[in-house]
């Protein structure tokens, strides 16, 4: 088993070189990249798929060379020339032996390909869940991601934090995939294949990023107007970072400093206006669940599922009219006065 794996890796390196030669292919690189390439796997399922894909590429590449070579030969060798004799070429109607040969050889290739494929299907899909695994429930919404950590009591959105998983300390993350509305698909290419989030049809997948960093992905099943801006960020943290993040997320929301009059007023606006119908800020009257949980909003780098950076200016623009940032987003323009908007933004920016 181990020998086989190393064999595949050798091929992997060969192919990385070949693909890199084609240009624009950041292959073989380790760690998180801004290009979510399936050629730079950073998690066991992605690695296994990558190794399998090298094997399949070798076989299909060989077929391509043989058949494509035959076709090229035929085109060059048998095109009509002025010097040809007038009469028609010899008519050949078929040959049972030849046809049998090119039926049996593909059958054998299919058998090999299928057995290899089946092994990886079962290895990834039916992998046992270790005791040390982290559970996360992913809920797809139009057009954002909700992440719930049931055993840790954390709810967050759009930016998933998971611990890094090493061979000495395996800590895979098992995702349960649900949908609140239509079909979505969870896809972070460097970490593994995609799995759909389908209402009434819970799915599961697992990842175990082996190096720290930010892995990018996005929704991969058309889910409506803003499908293109349903982006996904997965942070693989060191065990210490992850523990610190968990501790911070488990706290209720920060109380605004009494000297910060704007923020105090903003909290009041938030709790008394429609904001509270859709958003939760733990420890306040806001308990809505239709939109993202904002308890630790400022711990996230982006807003609107990655559509904009999490800055005061963007927050203000978003609250005034989400359609300017992400046309078709389901949050309505809040119709607040400029002063109220400033106050809400001042409050939100205290939610670390």
């Amino acid at each position, binding site marked *: 088993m181990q020998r086989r794996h190393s064999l595949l890796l050798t091929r992997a390196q060969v192919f990385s070189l070949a693909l890199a030669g084609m240009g624009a292919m950041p292959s073989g690189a380790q760690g998180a990249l801004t290009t979510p390439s399936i050629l730079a796997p950073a998690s066991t399922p992605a690695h296994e798929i990558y190794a399998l894909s090298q094997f399949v590429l070798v076989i299909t590449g060989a077929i391509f060379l043989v058949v494509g070579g035959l076709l090229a030969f035929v085109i060059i060798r048998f095109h009509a020339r002025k010097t040809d004799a007038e009469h028609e070429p010899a008519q050949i109607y078929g040959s049972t032996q*030849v046809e049998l040969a090119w039926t049996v050889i593909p059958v054998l290739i299919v058998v090999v390909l299928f057995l290899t494929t089946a092994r990886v299907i079962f290895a990834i899909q039916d992998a046992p869940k270790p005791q040390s695994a982290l559970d996360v429930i992913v809920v797809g919404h139009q057009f954002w991601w909700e992440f719930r950590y049931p055993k840790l009591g954390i709810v967050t959105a759009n930016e998933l934090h998971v611990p890094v998983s090493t061979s000495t300390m395996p800590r895979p993350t098992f995702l349960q995939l649900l949908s609140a509305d239509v079909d979505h698909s969870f896809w972070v290419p460097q970490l593994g294949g995609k799995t759909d989030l389908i*209402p009434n049809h819970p799915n599961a997948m697992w990842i175990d990023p082996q190096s720290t960093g930010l892995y990018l992905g996005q929704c991969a099943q058309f889910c409506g107007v803003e499908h293109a801006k349903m982006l996904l960020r997965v942070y693989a943290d060191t065990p210490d970072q992850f523990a610190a993040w968990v501790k911070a997320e488990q706290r209720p929301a920060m109380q605004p400093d009494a000297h910060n009059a704007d923020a105090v007023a903003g909290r009041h606006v938030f709790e008394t206006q429609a904001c509270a119908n859709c958003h939760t800020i733990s420890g306040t009257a806001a308990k809505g669940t239709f939109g993202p949980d904002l308890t630790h909003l400022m711990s996230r780098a982006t807003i609107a599922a990655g559509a904009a950076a999490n800055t005061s200016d963007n927050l203000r623009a978003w609250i005034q009219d989400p359609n300017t940032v992400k046309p078709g987003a389901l949050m309505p323009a809040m119709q607040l006065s400029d002063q109220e908007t400033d106050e809400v933004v001042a409050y939100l920016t205290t939610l670390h």
Partner: protein
Amino acid sequence: MADQTYPIPGTLDTTPSRGAALLEWVHSWVVTVDHKKLGILYIAYALVFLLVAGVEAMAIRIQLAIPHNHFLSAELYNEFFTMHGTTMVFLVGMTLIFGFGNYFVPLMIGARDMAFPRLNAFSFWMSAFGGLLLYFSFIGGFGLYGMGSAPDVSWWAYAPLTAKAFSPGHNTDYWALALIVMGFGTLGAAINTLATAFSMRCRGMTLLRMPLFVWLMVVASADTLIVITPLTAAQVMLIIDRYLGGHFFDTQAGGSATVWMHFFWIFGHPEVYVLILPAFGIASEVIPVFSRKAIFGYPAMVAASVGIAFVSLSVWAHHMFTIGMTSVSNAFFALSTMMVGIPTGIKIFNWVATMWGGKIRFATPMLFCTAFLFQFLCAGLTGIMLAVAPWDWQLHNSYFVIAHFHYTLTGSFVFCFFAAIYYWYPKITGRMLSETLGKWHFWLFFIGFHMTFDTMHFVGFLGMPRSSYTYEPDRGWTTLNMIISAGGLIQAVAVLILVWNIIDSFLHGPLAGNDPWDAWTLEWSTPSPPPPYNFETEPVVRSRRPLWDIKHPNDPDWKYER
């Protein structure tokens, strides 16, 4: 007998006015039940919608040429990619195959018309009105501003995005109703093709002497009959959900999203074969004629075609590897999908063997068919990659998939039908298409095609998902997308050259004569264009290449055929 000596009082002008003549001409096309005229109507209709879908594709490519582009709004982009897919499959693909099928199946089997001429006309007009209904959506709803209520739920229209809650208005209704209407037209055409091929063959034409194009039309029609039914059923269920309170796919009321997926793909995957099989038929006519050799392994070609049709009915869930089926189901559909490669491989080998030892003339039809062979080889191999379920978990819904199915539907289907246009235009119009313009068309389209779709494979490897109206600038997809869009523009220019060629050659092209390609099937024994009755006397054939037998009386096929 009019009496010349005593004219009727007053003048009776028997030459109609220009307006009346035009009306008469239009009327003759509207009420026609002639298979050739209906074939031309189908083909013309398909070409018009090919241009429309091309415009949609160009708009999509302009939008994606640079990241964060604002050429199209998100809503409009979603309408355009939905309509591009729906148009190409139903209004271009299906009408092209039945257009050429209509025109050439009776001619190739020595018949004077299709089995059911009136059903034939009915089928065409149902398809035509279905298409018009679909496109009327652009001016329905809020009108052209914002492009009306054109369907915007993608051409696979996964539930529950199509439910009233998520698709208010009439976008989805236009889509579902248009597909139902077109479905009836398609079923009629399929039944007609089967009946014609089975009961109208001339004397001596046994089933195993039918030209391969006719065989492939038969197989495609049989598959059509099987798969349009679940599609229509699904559309009816969808309409019931939307208007009569049904809960088939309404997940909020306990319905099932995955049931829709099964219904749709048990139609959708064989549909791809419905389209590609007649394209195989064209290649199987063109390649022998331009290689000057009989098709290699005719019985194997027939068997492989029937085999593909059967296997294609068992592979649909390879579109669904990511929906969370059990590992055993995933393995099953991986295997069944890989098995399609076996009969398909036989076909490719037989085409290459047909060319082997021939004297290949690279006229425009043969150029397109040769490129088809190469591109279909690639499409088959990327198909094998996608059949590898774990790899599909990565590639599914990425641009790799877009590249793969455009290799089959553009690189194979459209290339073969371009070949068909150059090959049979002389028969249909009596005039040759310009070879010079044909070569320009071919090379530009070939280069543009490879710029666009080769590059798409790589942008798919780099994680770009389909159906997205824009993308982030930092993802490393920008340069590749610019190349893809540039290639699209080159293909558009090539198609305009074809349009010009078709119009100009109709007026000024050199006369074709009966048999410009020195071909061997029965349609080349009639004048170009053929008279309404096709054949003065019923032909009698003794082999698969009746005209070869006539041209080579000392060395006829029937002495050697197995």
